[in-house]
């Protein structure tokens, strides 16, 4: 049977833990708000940019820009965006599972965030580059990443570049996703399917009138394309980073909240047990005293 002092000690330590998790929950909640606003604010831009590319699709073939070129080979590069710190629920393991399902088994990886980078070493996956990104995500840190993967694609080292991240749905729900970034899809001639999109739940709108897709380009079709495609890659990477960050803070907030709640429940149970024991001890003591008095009479 546990004695009083042991229980008291345990209550104390659980209380300490609860205090820490509660502090972490509050920090995560503050960061979460900021990260969510940033991610949601960026969606409109990413959406409109995608829509623009989609509307332009009839004016360009695959051959008009190297970033559109679909290649035969299966060499894949995956940009994985995980978290730097742990204690954020299952989002990293979920992401790892999703990658295992969707990415080709001999794909190479570029990692953002320490968690999956260390995991990759254990799994024996080849990581060719690693980036760290500050919090909140500055656009200036998305550019070097986009530039690196674009270069790898253009140099012909890889035939396909995907991006794996945790998409933010709401505070309680985050979905791991693997989407194809390069070659840029969906605005090819004759291909009508909505293309994979960063940011949940977005479908490009089809114009009813095909003539509406015949565009005048200024300064020139090639000029517009050469400027808009790299911009598109930059912003897709940026949006994915922001989505991942919003997911991370949301997941951490929720994980820390449930940890705090658990600790509180545990404290309640322990206190009950403690009080029971204390009562038992007092009763036993009283009993001893009365028996002693009775014996002396």
């Amino acid at each position, binding site marked *: 049977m546990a004695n009083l002092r042991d229980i008291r000690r345990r209550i104390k330590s659980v209380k300490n833990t609860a205090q820490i998790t509660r502090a972490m929950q509050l920090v995560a909640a503050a960061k979460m708000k900021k990260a969510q606003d940033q991610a949601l*604010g960026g969606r409109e*831009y990413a959406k409109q940019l995608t829509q*623009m590319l989609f509307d332009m699709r009839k004016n360009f073939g695959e051959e008009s820009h190297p970033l559109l070129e679909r290649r035969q080979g299966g060499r894949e590069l995956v940009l994985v965006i995980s978290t730097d710190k742990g204690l954020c629920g299952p989002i990293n393991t979920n992401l790892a599972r999703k990658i295992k399902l969707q990415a080709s088994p001999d794909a190479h990886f570029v990692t953002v965030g320490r968690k999956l980078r260390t995991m990759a070493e254990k799994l024996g996956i080849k990581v060719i580059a690693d980036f760290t990104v500050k919090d909140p995500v500055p656009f200036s840190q998305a550019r070097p990443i986009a530039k690196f993967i674009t270069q790898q694609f253009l140099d012909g080292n890889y035939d396909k570049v995907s991006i794996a991240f945790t998409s933010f749905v709401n505070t309680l729900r985050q979905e791991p996703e693997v989407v194809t970034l390069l070659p840029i899809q969906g605005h090819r001639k004759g291909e009508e399917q909505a293309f994979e999109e960063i940011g949940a739940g977005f479908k490009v709108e089809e114009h009813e009138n095909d003539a509406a897709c015949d*565009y*005048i380009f*200024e*300064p020139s079709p090639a*000029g517009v394309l050469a400027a808009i495609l790299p911009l598109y890659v930059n912003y897709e990477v940026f949006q994915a980073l922001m989505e991942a960050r919003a997911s991370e803070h949301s997941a951490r907030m929720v994980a820390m909240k449930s940890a705090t709640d658990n600790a509180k429940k545990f404290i309640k149970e322990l206190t009950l047990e403690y009080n029971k024991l204390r009562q038992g001890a007092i009763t036993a003591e009283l009993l001893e005293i009365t028996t002693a008095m009775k014996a002396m009479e």
Partner: protein
Amino acid sequence: MALQLDIVTPEKKIFSDTVDNVYLPGADGEMGILPQHAGLVTALKPGELRYLHNGKVERLAIGSGFAEVSQSKVVVLTDMALGEAEIDELNAEEAIKRAQEKLQGVEHSMDAEEVAYLQGVIAKSAAALHFKKTFRH
């Protein structure tokens, strides 16, 4: 006949409403868009965007980006869109200075993309400054 105008930056949607006309700082010079304009995609250079909204001319300083005109809709994607009151002259001047210093640093390394980016920053801030000076109340 009205024209639906959406102005979007990476941070947020700046404006979304029907307007009577839009003037854009296109890559080849300013262009005016009226309702029923032909489909058009244009690159934008940093400068002044103005539109007629409820009988009033509104002006914004915008950065580089793209605009798409289709049917009766204009979508402007830009990395900056500021009204006169939002422009901080000191801030803009400092941004130009910083970018110029950095530019001198990278020009030797011949990083074309970085140079283009920094020149973009300079052009953007200069446009904001010019805008502020022109339309100061």
